């Protein structure tokens, strides 16, 4: 659908430079007494990168109707991750390259929101936190203190290793930011 850039809103999907972008922020702007503009922050659905882009308010922009569906993550192979829509059992593949680092923190059997355009899965909806169980970590050595920011390695249930504080034990669950891979906090589940 073609829309005037002055009507763009947060959450809209736009197609430009051969990529699909989601608008993270859209703000009216006019420099000095200059012509009106629409300042936006765009996130690429392919690479996940964020860019700032300013449209002229009379510019015509191609927006896409992208659906967001809840799906179960099944498995992955060398190239793609496979998800299933539990309502109609249709399966969708998403290339690993478009998911990026987050792939390390996706759990088999868990549910994720997937962006779908013209029956093709684009990527998963980003989340700032994911809960994962620690499957292997050494106990802290006596004398090391929990304070002071000391860290040790821990393997989580998706198979990747992250840095955690010394007090975290085997079998406990932690919150990780999948975008950065960093430990956020320990939680009881």
């Amino acid at each position: 659908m073609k829309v005037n850039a002055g009507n763009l809103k947060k959450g809209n999907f736009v197609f430009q430079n051969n990529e699909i972008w989601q608008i993270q922020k859209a703000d009216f702007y006019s420099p000095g007494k200059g012509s009106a503009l629409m300042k936006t922050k765009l996130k690429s659905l392919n690479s996940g990168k964020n860019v700032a882009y300013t449209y002229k308010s009379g510019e015509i922009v191609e927006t896409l109707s992208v659906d967001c569906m809840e799906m179960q993550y099944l498995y992955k192979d060398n190239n793609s991750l496979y998800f299933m829509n539990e309502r109609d059992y249709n399966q969708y593949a998403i290339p690993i390259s478009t998911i990026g680092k987050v792939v390390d923190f996706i759990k088999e059997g868990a549910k994720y929101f997937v962006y779908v355009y013209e029956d093709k899965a684009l990527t998963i909806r980003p989340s700032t936190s994911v809960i994962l169980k620690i499957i292997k970590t050494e106990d802290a050595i006596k004398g090391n203190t929990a304070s002071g920011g000391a860290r040790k390695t821990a393997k989580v249930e998706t198979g990747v290793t992250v840095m955690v504080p010394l007090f975290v034990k085997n079998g406990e669950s932690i919150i990780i930011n999948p975008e950065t891979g960093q430990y956020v906090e320990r939680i009881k589940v």
Partner: protein
Amino acid sequence: MQIKTEISNLINYRLYLTILQVVENYLKKQRYLRIELPVLSPALIPELNVKAFETELKYIKKKQKLYLTPSPELFLKRLLAHNIGNCYYLGKSFRNNEQNSSLHSFEFTMLEFYKIGSNYMEMANEFLKMIQYISKIIFGKKVIEYNGKEIDLSKFEKISITQAFEKYAGIKEKELFNKSLFLKKAREKKYTVKGFSYEELFSQIYATEIEPNLGINGYPTLIYNYPKDFSSLSKLSSDKKTAERLEIYICGIELANCYTELNCWKEQQKRFKIRKASHSVDMGLIKALQYGLKNCAGIAVGMERLGMIFADVKSIHKLRLINIVNN
């Protein structure tokens, strides 16, 4: 649209009120005269990209179109031509094409002050002294913090429009002042050019590539000498391509717009004729200039934007207790 009451902004609002009082005290001390003005006018100055709200006064079978003033300039310049001397307006201005956003509102509080015998650079220094005074009264120092960055108000970082386009956008002087070369360059930079004017592309590149770099190096930035097409009310610079107009930025936010005022009535009339206005054009300003306007400079300050910097908040609406918001 709806009315939103935002009592949680009370702390910011109180600080903003203090700033207004400090500004008035400063201007009074400097012997500027406060001018109360109408906000409705039967005619306006034709300014590029400024759209006015229209209304109608109805009386015994007669109707008179009136406009809410987008700036107090048309009134203040008449008074200056009548030798009122240094003066200011502090009050509401209205722009019909400005939607609500963090830095915009269709009605906002503007401070506009004029000084006789000054040029735009001297006026910018007057503004700098004023913000130093505000900072000293409120925080007891000349360094403020905005969005995690320290800004030292003791001096400006200065850059011309020509230097800024070269430095931040890779657009050379000859490309900047030649409309077809500029559009070609914009196309190379992957901007949508078809159907858009030089002025629209200039604004787009300015907002995208120049503004985010202004006022981020620890000092407010003064950016000066805009192409003359963007400055219909200011004197031309000696190069005749640019006008004596400047803007002042802190952390990428435009706070003030300043001109050495054009006081040649023939030149002003010529520039007015070029403008296509959607409202009745105020020719009284030309008459006032014919009467004689002394050399002077004026500066317009978005008071809520200034308040936003001192309150360290990200939107002008955070200073307001009542906001008119989009649904």
